C-alpha cells in the first residue's frame, strides 16, 4: 500500500516537473516574440505594437512575388509569340525581344509600383500579411521605396547572375565562388540583425512589419446563456486555479476546436477544480460559463494591478 502511494507521489512530482519545464519553454518563447515588437508612439501619444516580420515570412513573400514575375513573363511572351505567328511574322524572335523588355520593366518597377501603392505591399507581401513602413514611424516616401528596391539588384539579381554564369577554367570557378560568398553576405544580411533589415531597408530607412487583418469575432461571453448555464456558479477558489495564459488557451479552444477536444478540456477543468461531471451537464455551456467567470475574475484582479500570469503564479 505504502509503495503504491509512493509511486503515485513520484508520478505527481514527475508530472509537475514536466509542467514546469513546459512553462519555462513557453515563457522563453513569449520573450522571443516580445523581442519582435517595435513600439511606435503615434502623435496622439498611444503606443502601437508593430511586429517585425520574420526572415522566413519575408523569404516566403519574395518567393511568391518572384513566381508571379516568372509566370507573367512566360505567359506574356507565349501570348506575343502566338499572336505574331498567327499574323505571319517571325514570332519567336520578336517575342523574345518583347519578353526581354517586359522582364526589364517588371524587374525595375514591379516591387516599386506595388509598394508605393495604397497597401505598401506587393501581392506576395499582402498574402503573408506584411507591409513596408518607415522605420521612424513617419511617412513612407516614394523615394524610400525606390531606394529599397534598387538595392534588390544587388541582393537578388546579382547573385542569380553569378549562379547561372558559366566559367571555363579553375581560376574562373574560384573567382565565381568568391563572388558568390561575397554576394551571400548581402542575401543573408537580414538574418543577422534584430529588425530583419535587408541592405535596401538600411539605406531607405524602412522596415517590413507583420500586420495581418484580424476579424473581430463575437465576444464569447455575449452568447445567450444556455438553459443549463444558470447551474454553473463558481467560487473564488475554483476560479483562482487558473491564470491569464490558461484563459487565452480556453478562448482558443472555444473559438476553434472540435467538440471532442472541448469535452476533454471540460473534463480536465472539472478535475482541477474538483467537480463531478453530472450526466445532464453540457460541456459547452460549462466551458462558456467557466470562461466568463474566469475572465471576469481575472479582469477584476487586473484592474487592481494584480496580473495572474498563469496557474503557477500564486501570490
Amino acid at each position, binding site marked *: 500500500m505504502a509503495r503504491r502511494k509512493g509511486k503515485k507521489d513520484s508520478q505527481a512530482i514527475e508530472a509537475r516537473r514536466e509542467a514546469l519545464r513546459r512553462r519555462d519553454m513557453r515563457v522563453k518563447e513569449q520573450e522571443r516574440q516580445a523581442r519582435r515588437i517595435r513600439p511606435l508612439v503615434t502623435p*496622439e501619444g*498611444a*503606443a*502601437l505594437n*508593430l511586429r517585425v516580420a520574420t526572415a522566413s515570412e519575408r523569404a516566403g513573400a519574395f518567393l511568391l512575388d518572384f513566381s508571379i514575375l516568372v509566370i507573367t513573363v512566360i505567359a506574356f511572351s507565349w501570348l506575343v509569340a502566338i499572336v505574331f505567328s498567327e499574323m505571319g*511574322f517571325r514570332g519567336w*524572335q*520578336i517575342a523574345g*525581344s*518583347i519578353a*526581354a*523588355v517586359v522582364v*526589364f520593366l517588371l524587374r*525595375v518597377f514591379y516591387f516599386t509600383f506595388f509598394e*508605393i*501603392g*495604397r*497597401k*505598401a505591399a506587393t501581392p506576395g507581401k499582402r498574402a503573408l500579411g506584411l*507591409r513596408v513602413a518607415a522605420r521612424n514611424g*513617419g*511617412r*513612407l*516616401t*516614394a*523615394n*524610400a521605396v*525606390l*531606394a529599397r528596391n*534598387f*538595392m534588390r*539588384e*544587388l541582393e537578388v539579381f*546579382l547573385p542569380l*547572375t553569378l549562379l547561372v554564369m558559366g566559367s571555363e577554367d579553375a581560376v574562373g570557378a574560384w573567382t565565381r565562388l568568391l563572388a558568390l560568398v561575397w554576394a551571400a553576405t548581402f542575401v543573408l544580411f537580414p538574418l543577422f540583425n534584430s529588425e530583419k533589415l535587408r541592405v535596401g531597408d*538600411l*539605406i*531607405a*530607412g524602412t522596415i517590413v512589419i507583420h*500586420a*495581418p*487583418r*484580424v*476579424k*473581430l*469575432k463575437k*465576444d464569447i*461571453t455575449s452568447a445567450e446563456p444556455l438553459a443549463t448555464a444558470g447551474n454553473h456558479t463558481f467560487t473564488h477558489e475554483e476560479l483562482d486555479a487558473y491564470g*491569464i495564459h490558461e*484563459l*487565452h488557451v480556453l*478562448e*482558443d479552444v472555444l473559438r476553434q476546436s472540435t467538440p471532442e477536444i472541448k469535452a476533454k478540456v471540460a473534463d480536465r477543468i472539472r478535475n482541477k477544480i474538483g467537480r463531478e461531471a453530472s450526466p445532464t451537464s453540457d460541456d459547452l455551456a460549462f466551458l462558456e460559463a467557466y470562461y*466568463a467567470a474566469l*475572465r*471576469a475574475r*481575472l*479582469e477584476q484582479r*487586473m*484592474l487592481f494591478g494584480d496580473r495572474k500570469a498563469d496557474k503557477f503564479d500564486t501570490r
Partner: protein
Amino acid sequence: MNDRVMKSYRFREEREADWQALDRIVTRAEKRGVKRLSDEDMLALPRLYRQAVSSLSMARSISLDQNLLAYLETLCARAYFFVYGTRASMGARIAQYFRRDWPVAVSGAILPTLLAALCLFGGGLLAFVLTMQDPEWFWTFNSGWDSRNPDAGYDYLRSTLYTEETNIADMLGAFAAQLFSHNSTIAVTAFALGFCLGIPTTILLIYNGLSIGSFMAVFFSKGLGAELTGWLFIHGVTELFAIVLAGAAGFMIGGAVAFPGKKTRIQSLRDTGNQAALVIMGAVIMLFLAALLEGFGRQLINSDMTRYTIAIGTLIFWLAYFYWPRRTDEAV
C-alpha cells in the same frame, strides 16, 4: 455571476459600432483610394481613428479577450498608416519627380557626379592613349570574344558602324539587347555597391572606361575616329551620362557611410539613400531612352551629320535640364 456586468464587455458593446465604421472606411480607402471616400467618411475618420487608438490603450488594461486586442492592434495600425500616410496621387508624384525632384537631386550631387565622370573618362583616356601607342594593350582591357579588335580590317570595322537594311525585328532585338547590356548592369551595380565605401563603384567605372577607351582606340588607329564617334555618341551621351549619374549615386551612399558627420551612420545612410534613389531612378530612365536611341535611332540614321546633331542636342538637353538654375520656392 452575471456576465453582463463585466466591464470589458460593456466597454466593447459601447464602442464596437465605431470600430466597425472605421474598419469599413479604411478598407474602402485601401481598396479604391482616398478619392472614393464620401465627405461624411472623411469627416468621421479623424474622430473614429482617435477613438480607436484610445480604445486600444484602454483595452490593454481592462480586457483579456485576445481576439479583441489583436483586432484593435491591427485596426489602429492600418488606420495610422492611412491617416499619416502620403496623400499625393501617383500622377502628381510622377509629375513632381520630373519637374523638380530629379533635376534638384542631380544638381545637388555635383561633386559625386564629377568624381564619377573623372573615374569613367579618366579610365577611358588612359586606355585610349595606351592602346593608340601599342595595340597589344587592347587585349589587357578586353577579352577576346569581340570581333572588333586591332586585328580586324578597315572595311569590316566600317561595316559595323552603318546599317544598310533594317527591319523592325532587328531594331527591337537591338533595343532589348541594349536594356540588358553590359552598360546598364554596370550602372545599377555601381549604385548598389556604393555603400561599400564607394570602392567597388570606382573600380567598375574605371574598368568600364578602360574598355570603352581601348575600343575607340581600335577605330581611331584605323582612321575611323569621326565615324565611330558619331556611331557611339548618338546614344552614348545619354548612356554614359546615366552611368556617371549611377556612379554618383553610389558615391553619395559611400560618402554617407564613410563620413556621416554628426549623424549616426544609419541615419546618414538613410537621408542620403533617399536622395540617391532619385538619381538612380533617373539613370534607369536615361538608360531606357538610350536603348531606344540605340535600337531605333542608330539603325535608321546612317548620316554622320545627323548622328552628331542628335548627340550634341541630347547633351545640351540633359545639361540644361539638370543644371539650369530654377526656383526652389515650391512647397513639398
